[in-house]
């Protein structure tokens, strides 16, 4: 793991007396793809905005690429806000160049790079089209290009996949991987777990304004024991004593968590007890299962439903 591109300690933020973020600690390694997961209203956007210096925390500290004042790193940071913002009358190329110029990139270079990005992504016909004539997804893509046109060291994306169709979501995943491969640190928030599962090395799970988990995706999954699925030829026998107490049967299959002792003692017990193993599989839990275990069923349900605004109050 490299030095942290972002490090935050004890970030707290309240709006109108209500705590939206209640002490966030995050360390995003340089060059990694880092996901912030949580239902709507969990505090993801507020956290990102504090990390970027758009809003000041009530308490806590943060450094962005080594800068205690985030705007000092503005030239090497790219940010795609959750609520996309572009000037409707600007052309696609000019919009990309303008966003680069805000980050210190000369306009003429921004225009050239913007045109290249558009052409490389099959949008050559839209180079000089005003934003107001583009679809929402396309405008979002333009803004994403504006976020990376100045070749930042850190890219912060707030819900980048929302509003994109499946094809564009795939393109965005590729783009994130390409940027990371080029050494850029990527941090993005999402309430769709499978994007994080596919892209991230590390994640933070936020619910109710608190970090519920921070670490490797594999570590999150390791919070749950692997699931064993067993089909035995013999319905009864001494092998049943080898099953853990919480094992349950459904449709002829036994399901239970792999015991802490591992697979070998289990196999020995089954075989010695005469189970007659017909099928046996061990499945590693997915991130969704880990999320449910970490953040709770309610948060997971809200993630799935996309309605979690009230969660923060309940948590």
């Amino acid at each position: 793991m490299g030095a942290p591109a972002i490090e935050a300690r004890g970030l707290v933020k309240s709006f109108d007396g209500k705590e939206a973020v209640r002490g966030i600690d995050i360390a995003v390694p340089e060059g990694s793809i880092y996901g912030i997961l949580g239902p709507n209203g969990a505090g993801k956007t507020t956290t990102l905005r504090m990390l970027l210096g758009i809003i000041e925390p009530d308490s806590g500290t943060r450094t962005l690429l080594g800068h205690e004042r985030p705007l000092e790193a503005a030239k090497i940071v790219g940010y795609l806000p959750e609520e996309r913002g572009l000037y409707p009358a600007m052309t696609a190329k000019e919009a990309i160049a303008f966003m680069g110029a805000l980050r210190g990139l000369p306009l003429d270079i921004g225009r050239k790079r913007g045109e290249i990005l558009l052409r490389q992504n099959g949008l050559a016909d839209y180079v000089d089209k005003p934003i107001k004539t583009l679809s929402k997804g396309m405008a979002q893509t333009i803004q994403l290009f504006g976020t990376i046109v100045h070749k930042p060291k850190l890219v912060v994306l707030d819900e980048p996949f929302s509003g994109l169709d499946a094809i564009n979501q795939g393109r965005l995943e590729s783009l994130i991987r390409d940027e990371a491969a080029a050494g850029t640190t990527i941090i993005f928030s999402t309430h769709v777990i499978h994007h994080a599962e596919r892209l991230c090395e590390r994640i933070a799970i936020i619910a109710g304004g608190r970090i519920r988990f921070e670490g490797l995706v594999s570590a999150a999954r390791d919070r749950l024991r692997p699931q064993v699925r067993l089909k035995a030829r013999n319905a009864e026998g001494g092998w049943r004593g080898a099953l853990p107490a919480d094992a349950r049967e459904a449709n002829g299959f036994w399901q239970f968590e792999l015991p802490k002792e591992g697979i070998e003692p289990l196999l020995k017990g089954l075989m010695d007890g005469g189970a007659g193993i017909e099928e046996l599989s061990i499945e590693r839990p997915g991130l969704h299962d880990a999320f449910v275990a970490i953040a709770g069923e309610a948060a997971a349900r809200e993630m799935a439903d996309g309605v979690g605004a009230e969660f923060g109050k309940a948590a």
Partner: protein
Amino acid sequence: MMGLLEAAWVIARRDFLATVYSRTFVIFLMMPLLLFGVAFAAGQAGERADQEARQAQVALVVDSQTVAALQQARDALVAGTSELNFPRLSVVAPAEHPDTQAQALLADDSGAYSAVVTGTLDHPVLTGPAKIDDYIGRRMALILDEARARAALAGAHIALPPTQFRRVLTAEAAGNLHSVRHFMARSAQVIIFTITLLLATMMVTNLIEEKSNKVIEVLAASVPLDSVFFGKLVAWLGVSLLGITLWAGVLATLYLFTQVLTQWVSLPVAPAIGWPIFILLTLLYFTSNFMLLGAVFLSVGAQASNVKEIQTVSMPITMMQVMFLLLAGTTISATGGALFWTAFIFPLSSPLSMIALAVQSETLWPHLVALVWQFLWVAIFVRVAAIMFRQTVMKSGGKVSLFTAFRAKA
């Protein structure tokens, strides 16, 4: 961090070009024509209607010779002043009893006579209520005096030639200069005030559009809000200066054109400080006034979430600015006192007061002091506007003290 000015320049350039290439700019260019056109037309129409309504009608129930004498006398008096300065004379054929006829004419609603003249030039009778004495009575007396004088001169065979002055020319008359400069000072104040108010409102509308476009989030994440506000002020200042240059160009061309047509080329009366410095000071005071008021509008107007709300929040500021205009207006006539000095010192009235001073006084150094003073307040206002925006609109609740507000911040 990008430099404050570098970031402000990026914002300013975008806003300037976006505005100049938009319909807003065309409307802005047309605005003075529309405003002055409507005001002029309304004023003209209203004044004419008022004057016509006010101009009294007097019935002449006299013989034809007296009618001719009175009408000639009136024409002679009107030629030197205005038709509207004297009552209209209507001839009514005399009846058997002129006094009774006069009473009947005044009682007749359809006649609309304010008074009736009967009798002769030497023994005229004016019939009407007492309240006509000041206006109609005095003017009819002037007409009768003129008619009688003309008749007397004609009787004595005396022909008076029109008066011919022997002219002694001077460069200027102090009384005339004072009067013209008084008008010029007032006009300069009103023009700066009007354009500033117009532009400040347009600028805030533009900011609200950015809030609704969510562009402001992108800007706030990239550059300090001070730069955003300063950039916007500079952009709209540029827009206004471009507009003013175009208007001035058109006016100068029209002025020269009329001068050439009349084969007489001259500059209008110069302000006390001289035209070149006055033009420079006008631009500088317009700049400071615009940036001061613009910063106030930005800080308060940015709290609004739509154009309708802007109108609500702008109203008190506009009213206050009108009061500052009136305050600045006191410096044109007064020469001292608390109000006089307050108008010069208070930041929001200082530019307007100082431009009036430039018209009336040739001393330069107060302008240098005033400009430093005003631009110091521009910096303070922009900083406060950015803090207010961050605190209330961006909901960023960092603690702000007088010290932290003005130290260098990222």
